[in-house]
């Protein structure tokens, strides 16, 4: 081989190596979709979304890639932003359960497609109460619910005050997870915060957190949480996550916990919890919930097919499956779902889903560790 050729090929080889372990060029018709959600969601895409979409669009195939959690997804968003600034193909066609608010400034710069203006046929069906930003297309939601063993809990509390009363009357029978490890635990203390501040979710906005504003409200929260602490599982112990809470319920160690609706429904349908397990929602002010959506970079190589897929995601066909197969809430209005589902879920279908802003959480969780958890005596 000529020396010059050798240099040329080695340089090309080094370039390939630098491009990362997954050497990928945006192939026409292959959509690269990265997931922030757990395997249950990827399974859902593999079994429902992928076959349905590929059958309707010949020559298109979906490449579903687990994104490796929040920091992994952020890295991909960084990559998309860098490609956007360099006007290149980011090789990212869609990010699942990500938000268009990262990297800072990317939304304003126009990195993410504005779905309201993208001409999706189904967009008018989307439930406006769950839209956080027009660049984020919500397609599945879940809400924190009370998950309990109805053989032990004869009358399930319907208000937060009733729940506190129940916890104190049944020492050791309730558990919630550490807020940073399981969002169900986070939602519990956030609901408690809303309780001690007069059930006004509008006090907590994404952009209004300041230490001075929050501190007096937090000061009201600690007495309530310390008050119930001795009556919690094991004299005041907190589980290490959403699954761990459900495990305690499954082994009969506690009679009630808080859980995400999709995880609760899935555990019940798989039979890993007792047959007598049931779920309920507070009737005064529901536990907070959240919607996961997809975002599409405006410079994506397969942008047009990605938008077609987005439209398919919010079609009643897929949304019915979100409810039945994933145990989630639909991103579109309930009236567009099948009659059967509308009737079945009439009682749990929330009129509104309170969302607690994530900007508040770092300080709230840290203060919880220092004020509530550190009070444990053993």
């Amino acid at each position, binding site marked *: 081989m000529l020396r010059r050729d050798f240099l040329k090929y080695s340089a090309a080889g080094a370039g390939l190596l630098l491009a990362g372990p997954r050497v990928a060029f945006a192939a026409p018709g292959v959509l690269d979709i990265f997931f922030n959600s757990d395997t249950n969601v990827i399974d859902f895409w593999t079994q429902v979304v992928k076959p349905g979409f590929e059958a309707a669009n010949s020559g298109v195939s979906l490449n579903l890639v687990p994104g490796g959690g*929040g*920091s992994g997804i952020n890295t991909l968003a960084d990559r998309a932003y860098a490609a956007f600034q360099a006007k290149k193909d980011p090789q990212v066609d869609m990010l699942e359960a990500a938000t268009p608010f990262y990297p800072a400034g990317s939304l304003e710069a126009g990195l993410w497609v504005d779905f309201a203006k993208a001409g999706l046929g189904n967009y008018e069906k989307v439930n406006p109460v769950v839209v956080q930003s027009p660049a984020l297309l919500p397609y599945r939601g879940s809400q924190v619910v009370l998950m309990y063993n109805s053989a032990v809990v004869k009358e399930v509390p319907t208000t937060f005050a009733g729940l506190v009363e129940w916890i104190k009357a049944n020492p050791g029978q309730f558990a919630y997870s*550490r807020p*940073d*490890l399981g969002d169900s635990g986070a939602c519990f203390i956030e609901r408690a915060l809303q309780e001690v501040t007069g059930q006004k979710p509008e006090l907590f906005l994404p952009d209004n957190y300041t230490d001075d504003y929050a501190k007096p409200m937090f000061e009201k929260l600690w007495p309530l949480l310390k008050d119930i602490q001795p009556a919690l599982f*094991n004299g005041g*112990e*907190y*589980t*290490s996550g959403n699954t*761990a809470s459900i*495990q*305690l319920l499954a*082994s*009969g*160690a506690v009679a009630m916990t808080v859980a995400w609706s999709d995880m609760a429904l899935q555990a019940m349908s798989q039979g890993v919890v007792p047959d007598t397990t049931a779920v309920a929602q507070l009737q005064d002010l529901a536990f907070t919930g959240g919607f996961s959506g997809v975002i599409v970079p405006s410079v994506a190589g397969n942008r047009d097919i990605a938008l077609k897929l987005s439209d398919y995601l919010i079609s009643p066909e897929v949304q019915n499956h979100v409810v039945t197969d994933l145990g989630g809430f639909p991103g579109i209005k309930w009236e567009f779902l099948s009659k059967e589902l509308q009737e079945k879920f009439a009682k749990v279908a929330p009129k509104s889903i309170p969302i607690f802003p994530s900007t508040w*959480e*770092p300080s709230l*969780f*840290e203060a919880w*560790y*220092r004020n509530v*958890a*550190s009070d*444990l005596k*053993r």
Partner: protein
Amino acid sequence: MSATAMSLRNGWRGLAFIAIPVMAITIFLFYPAALSIIGTLVHPKDGGGYTFSLQSYVFFFTDGYSLANLARTLWTTVVTLILLIAVTLPIALYMRFTKGPLATVIQALALFPMFVPGIIICYALIRYMGPNGWLQSLLSLVGFHHYASPHLTPWGPVIGLMWDGMPLTLLILISGLSNISNASIEAARDVGAGRLRILVSIITPEITHSLLIVSALNFLGIFGQALMPFMLGPTNPEMMGPFMLRTFSSVRDPLQASTQATITFLICSLAGVAYVRSIARRPQEDRK
């Protein structure tokens, strides 16, 4: 070719061999580690420039919460280490002096944890020793009803870490014991030494080196553990691993997280120094 030129050439070849790993360590380990350590000491000033400050360290060492976490980490590490050696040393001794099918079975059992991922051990241990788990059911079958689960108490991570640390500890101890010649033991026996005397005067001095290595390696492994403590341990005090992780990702305070990491690194480097000295001294002793 002269001998000097030859050895020089060999020297260069040797350096070329280690260049790649050394570069990899420098680029992917030393450089980012140095950046984050320097980042805890030197902070960017408003309006450009840098300022030197020990503020984050002052905070750590005056903050009761952080100190309690450090103390809990040290406690867990020391207790786990002592229990680990107390459990594995007899097994290692048994396997050194016994041959046969039973010894093979015990060896296989003791090495088994090496092939099971930590997260699976965690969930399995929760089901086994957790509240209303198998252990409690088995105990109540034989009439013992006062079982208090170690799950979510300081003993939870101790048990998990012992499970995890056993194979490596056992392998190192066995290799240390295999260095003891049968002849020296028989010689001691011939002059009338009892079993205990052989253990204290012949075996223990021979394996202090292995014990040192085992202690240093396990110290490093246990001190920085994040998985077992947060799966099996109490909410509070936390061990340094979960504490750092939480400070970084949930509290979103990278400065304090790297301060905690630097302090953890300094404590672990003591164990590292002990380990390196121990291996470095060994060949010299052998040469004497």
